[in-house]
């Protein structure tokens, strides 16, 4: 080998070695790169390029180093023999590198296409995610909405349930046949069904009056509602309550009647109160009228009476004229008694107020009437409370009241006889003294009960009673701020059985211990005030 060739030979050998080292360093770096991003096309390409380059470097560098070694060791023949292989391998490797390089843009295109696809997929994915999020949100919102609506519904339902259960009026639902599907507690209580399991009720059985039921149903079908319908309903025990009904028809989607819902208000108390008020007003107006009439009649009556008495003197006692005049006189006396009773009823005659012991009055009255009662086989049983407080009143008038009540009791028992109970009691809470006259007679029919205090109302036969006794008693007791109530049939004695008799309870307010001195003159003044007006 020529010496001038030496640098190039050294350079070739060292260059070949460096080529191998550098190509493998490159290979390592590309390997690290693809390890980091295995999906990166560029790094992948570079890696494959470096592999090809490394193989080419080995092939070429080893080829050159073998060539130099063979040339230096003068073995040109061997080199000539293997050089074509080395050249061929190098060329093939070069071609593969070129091929890799040439297909780089195709790879890039493919990679781009894939990237694009991936991008569009990512986009689609993002959209999908967005949609999913929206869906989720919507779902969440829907849940909230459903929850809120359910809560509203529950509240509303509770409100209506409370209304249904707590209403003091009857609330009911009825099917198209008139059977009651549901009724609230107040309604069942109104009908007295509260303590047991409600039976299957029907409107047909509840209405006391069949005509009312027809009216109710006709109105409901023609107007689709019923407003303020007055109906009498039958309670469990058969008694009647007065109600004010309002109902609305319920129709299905085909406008077919399926039933109705309604409310009923119990008017029984109101009705009773109204009746009492009417009765009180009636009594007051009758009283006024009676007083007026009584005064007007009094004078001519006195003259008739006087003249009949005067004329009696003109005839001998056994003459017919005399007898006739006796009749005129007697009837005039009867009239005078009626007029006097009317005046007492209208409270126009004078009153006085003093401390009165009801027990003493009753003892007096019993003493007077006892003999008469015994004639009718009536025994008197006293049951007078000890230490009964005094009341403020007119002793004479109260005596008259009890005489009236005992007379009525006697009348009720005159056929059969029996026991007449006179009882007094004191209620500390109400500060009322109660005196009861209880008979075992025939009792007072429900139909006439509201009329027994009416003036001229009597069940006694003609000539036996004027029908003013109870009216006068009513007036007197009312004047004493008391009440008279009727109980018939009556719970007799301690036996829990109802007997047909009647109890008349007179309740009078007690004259308090403290206001004793004050209230007596006040009552006096009141009575005087009435006298003035009278």
């Amino acid at each position, binding site marked *: 080998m020529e010496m001038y060739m030496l640098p190039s030979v050294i350079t070739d050998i060292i260059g070949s070695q460096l080529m191998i080292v550098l190509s493998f360093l490159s290979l390592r770096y590309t390997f690290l790169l693809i390890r980091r991003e295995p999906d990166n096309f560029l790094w992948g390409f570079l890696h494959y390029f470096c592999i090809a380059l490394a193989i080419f470097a080995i092939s070429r560098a080893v080829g050159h180093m073998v060539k130099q070694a063979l040339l230096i060791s003068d073995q040109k023949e061997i080199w000539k023999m293997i050089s074509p292989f080395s050249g061929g391998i190098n060329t093939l490797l070069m071609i593969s590198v070129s091929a890799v390089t040439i297909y780089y843009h195709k790879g890039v295109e493919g990679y781009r296409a894939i990237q694009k696809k991936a991008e569009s997929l990512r986009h689609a994915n993002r959209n999908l995610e967005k949609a999913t999020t929206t869906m989720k949100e919507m779902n969440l919102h829907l849940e909230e909405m459903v929850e809120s609506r359910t809560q509203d519904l529950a509240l509303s339902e509770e409100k209506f349930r409370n209304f249904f259960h707590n209403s003091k009026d009857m609330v009911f639902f009825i099917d198209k046949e008139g059977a009651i599907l549901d009724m609230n507690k107040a309604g069942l209580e109104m009908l007295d069904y509260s303590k047991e399991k409600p039976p299957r009720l029907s409107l047909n059985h509840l209405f006391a009056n069949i005509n009312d039921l027809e009216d109710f149903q006709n109105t409901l079908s023609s107007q689709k509602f019923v407003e303020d319908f007055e109906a009498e309903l039958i309670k469990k025990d058969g008694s009647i309550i007065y109600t004010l009904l309002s109902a609305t028809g319920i129709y299905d989607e085909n406008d077919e009647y399926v039933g109705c819902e309604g409310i009923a208000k119990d008017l029984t108390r109101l009705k009773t109160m109204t009746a009492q008020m009417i009765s009180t007003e009636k009594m007051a107006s009758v009283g006024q009228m009676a007083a007026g009439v009584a005064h007007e009649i*009094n004078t001519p009556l006195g003259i008739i009476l006087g003249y009949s008495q*005067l004329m009696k003197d003109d005839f001998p006692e056994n003459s017919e004229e005399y007898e006739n005049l006796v009749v005129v006189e007697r009837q005039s006396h009867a009239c005078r008694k009626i007029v006097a009773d009317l005046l007492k009823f209208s409270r126009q*005659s*004078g009153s*006085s107020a003093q401390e009165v012991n009801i027990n003493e009055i009753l003892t007096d009255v019993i003493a007077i009437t006892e003999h008469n009662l015994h004639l009718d086989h009536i025994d008197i049983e006293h049951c007078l409370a000890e230490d009964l407080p005094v009341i403020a009143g007119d002793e004479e008038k109260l005596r008259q009241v009890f005489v009236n009540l005992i007379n009525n009791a006697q009348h009720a028992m005159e056929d059969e006889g029996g026991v007449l109970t006179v009882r007094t009691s004191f209620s500390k809470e109400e500060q009322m003294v109660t005196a009861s006259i209880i008979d075992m007679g025939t009792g007072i029919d429900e139909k006439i009960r509201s009329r027994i205090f009416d003036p001229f109302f009597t069940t006694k036969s003609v000539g036996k009673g004027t029908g003013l006794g109870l009216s006068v008693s009513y007036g007197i007791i009312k004047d004493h701020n008391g009440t008279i109530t009727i109980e018939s049939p009556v719970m007799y004695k301690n036996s829990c059985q109802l007997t047909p008799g009647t109890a008349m309870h007179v309740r009078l307010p007690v004259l308090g211990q403290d206001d004793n001195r004050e209230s007596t003159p006040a009552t006096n003044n009141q*009575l005087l005030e009435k*006298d003035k007006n*009278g």
Partner: protein
Amino acid sequence: MAEILILDDVFDAVVLLKKILSRQGHTVHTFTEEEDAIKYGYKHHIDLAILDIKLKKMSGIDVLAELKRLQPEMKAIILTGYPTVETARDALSFGANEYCVKPIDKKELEAKVEKVLQL
């Protein structure tokens, strides 16, 4: 027998009383107008006045007061169809000897008149 004055606004009533009391032997003067009765009282002696409370213009008690002023010795019976504690008290305080509620019985009237006249 006694001189009796009767005052009532109802004519038939005074006539009746007059008849009853005349039969008892009394001299009876009847009036339906209160002024006439008072005028009579100015000039004539009266033993007993029977006065109704409700008159046409005045109250019987006012007439009583006037007559009593003129003749303090006069006896009086007050009649009324409207008995009240107040008028009873007034009648007695103005010197009435009896206070009777109408319609009055013949015998009752005769008895009361006799009783009052004997006072």
